[in-house]
């Protein structure tokens, strides 16, 4: 995973340093270097005083940059060992700090609705408040948003509450996980041998099974509570008898019926005030991922087919649990049409209903890139599902091809695609098929090998591996190339940020004068000021664009 590459760690530390200062940076550095650790280990590893570490950790946890687990060690012979907390860096979340502007734009865009006249500003402000503060209670969110929007009256509060409900309902807000969550087991390879039969009571296996069961229970509890709407909000809405209230009254009744006396985390009135909410970045990324899929399909098959896929993905979105889902949920044409209608009603300017949905879906299924597939027959007719991971892989390949063309020229791209389409070839075959002189071809191939875009395999005719009696075949290392690019993107982002800081530092004097409101900016300062404005605009734009690529290669 490129999240754990040294460059990603460097970038993560610099982001933390910028946002939260040097102490948090040191704590983050120690966490990244040594992985999951207890407070004691962290004190030893970071060399900071305990008080500073505690404060640093609190800031990191508050801003979702560190994850806390409660660890229950296996009980000893005489006495049960006390549980303690473990801290893990949330590297992916830290790195996604770069994506915050895109998240805000996404939220604003999602809630523009021509029918209700909604422009998405309040939704955006709520998310902005949460992104600024990490995690907040419901009351804190309402207060901070109202302050920001300068709508502190009762009406303003009610409208903010309604928007918060929208965001919660669409899973864009989630409850922060409780601090006593057990640490998830490291992922075991699927081929790892599974034990058969029940372990002996009191054995180590039995203990680990119990721990596993406890963990699952805690995870299930969190999964249940994660998107649970706060009761206070729902009751408010029912009282107000608004449209949204009616919408959620049903879900509240269902919840009461299901809960039926059971303790649901965050469900009790006394606890509810303490529940912390945060932005669900997974949901934001999922929507961006879907948008990337739709962009590609629109480019290949036109707006109508793109619109059909957009409707299918919009229908599937609430039901997807993992970010990197291979397939969307299956829907019949009728349901897809309904979703398309909803989109068209909400955004008549941005979304146009496909004229012939059946034809568009068929086109998606029949495409040679297998964009979608036909599922089973349901009550509403034949089901369709999108091949999401396949589409994202094509997006990745296209991006890699663009990079190859920029780095190695048109001939480099030709050789790369030739190998991608034909598999494994010898040097002479490549030169002939790509119509280039053997000498140039050899040079190009070795340059691409060095950069990690192609691989070389030797097939010896004799056991001594003598070069004269060996075939050398070339092939595209597609996965390796994508992984390499994924890591290099972090490095590039870090470089851009370093350069930006450097440029800012160089012009510190002028910038301080401007910030200080000093009206007497000398004529000699105008030039540098103009330049630094341009430089920062260019670098920041590039950083956003690089982050869009980081998302494709690392998160989608």
């Amino acid at each position, binding site marked *: 995973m490129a999240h754990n590459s040294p460059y990603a760690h460097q970038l993560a530390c610099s982001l933390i340093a910028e946002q939260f200062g040097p102490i948090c940076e040191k704590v983050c550095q120690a966490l990244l270097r040594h992985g999951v650790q207890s407070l004691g280990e962290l004190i030893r590893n970071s060399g900071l005083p305990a008080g500073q570490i505690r404060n640093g950790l609190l800031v990191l946890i508050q801003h979702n940059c560190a994850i806390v687990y409660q660890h229950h060690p296996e009980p000893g012979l005489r006495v049960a060992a006390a549980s303690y907390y473990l801290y893990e860096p949330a590297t992916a979340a830290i790195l996604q700090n770069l994506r915050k502007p895109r998240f805000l734009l996404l939220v604003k865009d999602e809630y523009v609705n021509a029918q209700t006249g909604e422009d998405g500003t309040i939704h955006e402000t709520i998310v902005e408040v949460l992104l600024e503060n990490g995690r907040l209670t419901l009351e804190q969110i309402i207060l901070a948003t109202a302050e920001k929007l300068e709508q502190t009256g009762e009406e303003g509060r009610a409208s903010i509450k309604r928007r918060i409900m929208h965001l919660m309902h669409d899973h864009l807000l989630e409850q922060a996980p409780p601090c006593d969550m057990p640490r998830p087991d490291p992922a075991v390879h699927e081929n790892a041998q599974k034990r058969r039969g029940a372990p002996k009571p009191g054995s180590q296996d039995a203990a680990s099974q119990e721990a596993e069961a406890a963990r699952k229970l805690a995870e299930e509890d969190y999964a249940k509570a994660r998107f649970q709407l706060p009761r206070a909000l729902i009751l408010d809405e029912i009282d107000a008898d608004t449209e949204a209230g009616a919408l959620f009254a049903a879900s509240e009744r269902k919840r009461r019926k299901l809960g039926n006396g059971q303790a649901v985390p965050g469900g009790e009135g006394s606890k509810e005030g303490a529940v912390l909410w945060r932005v669900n970045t997974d949901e934001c990324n999922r929507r961006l991922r879907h948008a990337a899929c739709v962009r590609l399909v629109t480019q290949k098959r036109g707006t109508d087919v793109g619109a059909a896929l957009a409707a299918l993905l919009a229908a599937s979105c609430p039901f997807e649990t993992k970010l990197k889902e291979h397939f969307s949920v299956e829907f019949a044409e009728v349901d897809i049409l309904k979703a398309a209608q909803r989109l068209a009603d909400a955004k008549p300017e941005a979304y146009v209903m496909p004229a012939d949905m059946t034809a568009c879906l068929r086109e998606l299924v029949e495409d040679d890139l297998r964009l979608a597939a036909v599922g089973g027959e349901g009550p509403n007719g034949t089901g369709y599902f999108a091949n999401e991971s396949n589409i994202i892989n094509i997006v990745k390949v296209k991006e890699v091809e663009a*990079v190859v063309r920029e780095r190695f020229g048109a001939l480099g791209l*030709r050789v790369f695609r030739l190998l991608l389409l034909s598999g494994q070839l010898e040097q002479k075959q490549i030169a002939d098929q790509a119509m*280039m002189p053997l000498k140039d071809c050899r040079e190009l191939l070795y340059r691409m090998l060095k950069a990690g875009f192609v691989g070389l395999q030797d097939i010896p005719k004799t056991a001594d591996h003598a070069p004269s009696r060996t075939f050398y075949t070339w092939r595209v290392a597609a996965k390796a190339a994508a992984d390499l690019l994924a890591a290099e993107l972090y490095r590039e982002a870090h*470089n851009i940020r370093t*350069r930006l800081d450097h*440029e800012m530092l160089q012009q510190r004097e002028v910038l301080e004068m401007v910030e200080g409101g000093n009206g007497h900016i000398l004529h000699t300062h105008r030039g540098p000021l103009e330049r630094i404005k341009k430089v920062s605009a260019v670098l920041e734009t590039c950083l956003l664009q690089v982050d869009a690529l980081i998302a494709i290669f690392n998160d989608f």
Partner: protein
Amino acid sequence: MAGRLSSTEEAVLEVCRKHGNAGVADALLQEELHHMTMQARMMAINSLLNKHRLTLLTNPADESLVYKEVIAEDAAKFKGLGTEEMLVYQHIQASGNYGIWTKDLKMKTNLAQPQITKLLKVLEQRSLIKAIKSVSNANRKVYMLYELEPARELTGGAWYTEHEYDSEFIEVLQQACYQFILNAGEASLDDVALFIKEKGFSKVELRADDVMSLINCLEYDGKIDRVEREEGEMFRRALLEIPDTSAFTNVPCGSCPVFNDCTPDGAISPNTCVYYQKWLDF
């Protein structure tokens, strides 16, 4: 023309002329020239062979030897050539339009290298043979008969002009093919081949597989797609284009040759990077 011939020599040639292309076996010659002693006949035949007026051939049916008169032009061509020159000439002739390398010639003729060089020079001066450079082995010169057209493998086919890979020519043809496919919407291999032939882009005749390689390259360039239709394989504009630029390479780091040596505090660092300096120099 050869010097004057003796009467016996004339008589031998007369018999050969009588039997035309089939050639005359020694037995037949003896029968026809029964008035001549065997010695006189042999003397005449040897003399004629020396003068290149007579040639000795092997009958493929029974491996017997037959004599045949050399036609007048050939006789003029080979006039004054010694047996060694003829030996080299014959090996070169046998190699056809693939040509033969001097090293191979040396092995086959058992002659010394300097001698072969000398013989080849003589033959070349008399325009009997020519030297051709092979595209596959640029340093290797091969010899073949003057009048032969070198084989495709030797010249590299249509894509080589004077032993140099003609990238410009290929580029022009590819562009033409691409434009044709764009204008046609969908086109088959035959359509493209016909278009190129009609427009007369190429002086050399392009075979179907030459055109196919042009089209394949367009596909590898990501410009066209290959689609299966009822009427066969068709080509059309690529629906999925490769992005013009990449966010990765828009920044100097994306194509930096010292990217891997760059560290924030090192000799090469983003702060002192000359590529950034150039890029941000508005």
